[in-house]
């Protein structure tokens, strides 16, 4: 039963929290209510069984416990009486409104991404409130001390309160301005699900599905090439989910994946979005990345891949938004066209500029090139660098395997 409750926490707690924030009008109060609701579930469900609609049960239990608590506290503090009154009867009708609930996570993202909140706090808050990562996990992933992350989140919440940042999806005329940050966060949620920054499991399907759902909701509100590019990208990447791990949880690289396991329906939808965007002539940052993913998705076999075309797409991407991570990915594509020495030269140039030195995949890519060049002692060193920086168990296991396979 505890495992079942843990699973429900993982899959439902973010949406319950998002709805509680709307109903209770305050982040901290909502978090407390969420905690209370799950504490109550741990007490009641083993006896009474899991309710038919656990989400509705958790929302109404959390809300009720908060009102109950405010009532007890307001015996001593009159100011709480007003809050309690404001929570009570008027909003009763809204609780079961599924349309409102469906949009609550989107409201939460727009609030976390409000321009009045500093960018680093937006990211920390989004990962915690929307992905459900702990403060310590976020700190771990970004290599910063937990108190720094905690302070950013506390300040952002104070800012939401003091500036009266509304808990809503903005009006249509404001949407385009606010969209970029929101798309960025949705992609962050997706990436956390697609390649968890820490822990024993590389994939969290609940997060990738949630990111895709949010992007669809957004696209329904506002047809936007950025949003449709992002949706295409996420669909094409997620289509490979079943092929990315072996039965025992080991990572399988793109070239070695069984493409029969790729989700054809997701690929069909992703490719249709890409084709529509290409016809419209508006292929943005996410659209270009989706176009690269589409190159793989269109091919039934890895050795049919048109790496020259992929390199050209990376060139366009770098022109649109220079980034060392994209340069690194381009290096892999270049190596596929021109050989490992060309790839190695690009990675070494990035590292010698002082960039990506803490990024394990830069060292892992470098190690792969060195291995292909048969410079085994150098490859071993580079793999060991990657291993030291890697925070994720399946990736660590993969790197260890590569090290073990190196000839002495």
């Amino acid at each position, binding site marked *: 039963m505890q495992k079942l409750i843990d699973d429900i926490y993982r899959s439902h707690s973010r949406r319950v929290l998002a709805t509680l924030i709307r109903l209770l009008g305050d982040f901290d109060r909502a*978090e*407390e209510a969420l905690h*209370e609701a799950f*504490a109550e579930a741990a007490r009641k469900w083993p006896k009474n069984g899991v309710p038919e609609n656990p989400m509705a049960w958790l929302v109404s239990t959390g809300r009720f416990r908060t009102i109950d608590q405010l009532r007890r506290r307001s015996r*001593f503090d009159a100011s709480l009486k007003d809050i309690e009154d404001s929570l009570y009867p008027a909003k009763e009708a809204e609780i079961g409104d599924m349309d409102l609930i469906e949009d609550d996570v989107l409201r939460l993202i727009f609030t976390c991404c409000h321009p009045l909140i500093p960018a680093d706090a937006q990211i920390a808050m989004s990962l915690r409130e929307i992905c459900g990562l*702990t403060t*310590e996990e976020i700190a771990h992933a970004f290599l910063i001390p937990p108190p720094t992350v*905690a302070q950013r*989140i*506390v300040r952002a919440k104070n800012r939401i309160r003091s500036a009266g940042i509304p808990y809503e999806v903005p009006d249509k005329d404001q949407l385009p301005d606010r969209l970029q940050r929101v798309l960025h966060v949705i992609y962050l949620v997706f990436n956390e699900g697609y390649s968890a920054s820490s822990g024993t499991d590389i994939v969290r399907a609940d997060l990738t599905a949630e990111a895709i759902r949010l992007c669809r909701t957004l696209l329904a509100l506002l047809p936007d090439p950025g949003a449709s590019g992002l949706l295409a990208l996420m669909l094409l990447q997620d289509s490979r989910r079943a092929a990315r791990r072996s039965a025992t949880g080991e990572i399988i690289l793109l070239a070695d994946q069984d493409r029969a396991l790729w989700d054809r329906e997701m690929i069909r939808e992703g490719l249709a979005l890409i084709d529509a965007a290409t016809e419209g002539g508006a292929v943005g940052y996410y659209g270009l990345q989706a176009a690269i993913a589409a190159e793989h998705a269109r091919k039934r076999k890895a050795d049919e891949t048109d790496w020259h075309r992929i390199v050209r797409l990376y060139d366009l991407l770098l022109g649109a938004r220079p980034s060392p991570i994209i340069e690194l990915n381009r290096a892999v594509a270049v190596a596929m066209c021109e050989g490992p020495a060309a790839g190695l030269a690009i990675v070494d140039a990035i590292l010698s500029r002082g960039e990506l030195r803490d990024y394990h995949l830069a060292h892992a890519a470098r190690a792969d090139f060195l291995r292909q060049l048969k410079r085994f002692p150098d490859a071993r060193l580079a793999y060991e660098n990657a291993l030291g920086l890697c925070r994720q168990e399946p990736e660590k296991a993969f790197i260890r395997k590569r090290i073990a396979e190196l000839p002495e």
Partner: protein
Amino acid sequence: MKYLCLVWCEEGKFEALSNEEREQLDRDSMGYDQELARSGHMIATEALQSPANSVVVRVRHSEISVTDGPFAEAKEQLAGFILIEARDLNEAIRVAAGIPLAKLGSIEVRPVHNFG
């Protein structure tokens, strides 16, 4: 995760309260302890006597020395602690912010080492 919430407070500030205010603070503190017990955050809590009643023990070269607290001069004194269970540091901060004495003194939130 376990976190130890150390409640620091200037003794003078507490003494400056009226009887009524002090009673209110006691009631609020007890009420909050009950809330934390009910919500499952609470592991243990104690209020501490004045540092005037404390001694400091050291063992050097197998010899025990006992002195008055060298911390007696510090501005804020340790007035009590609450050991809590929380999902993460920000949840612990939220719990700490609800401690009634946070309005008078300050709460240090220390993560407990997890050797698991």
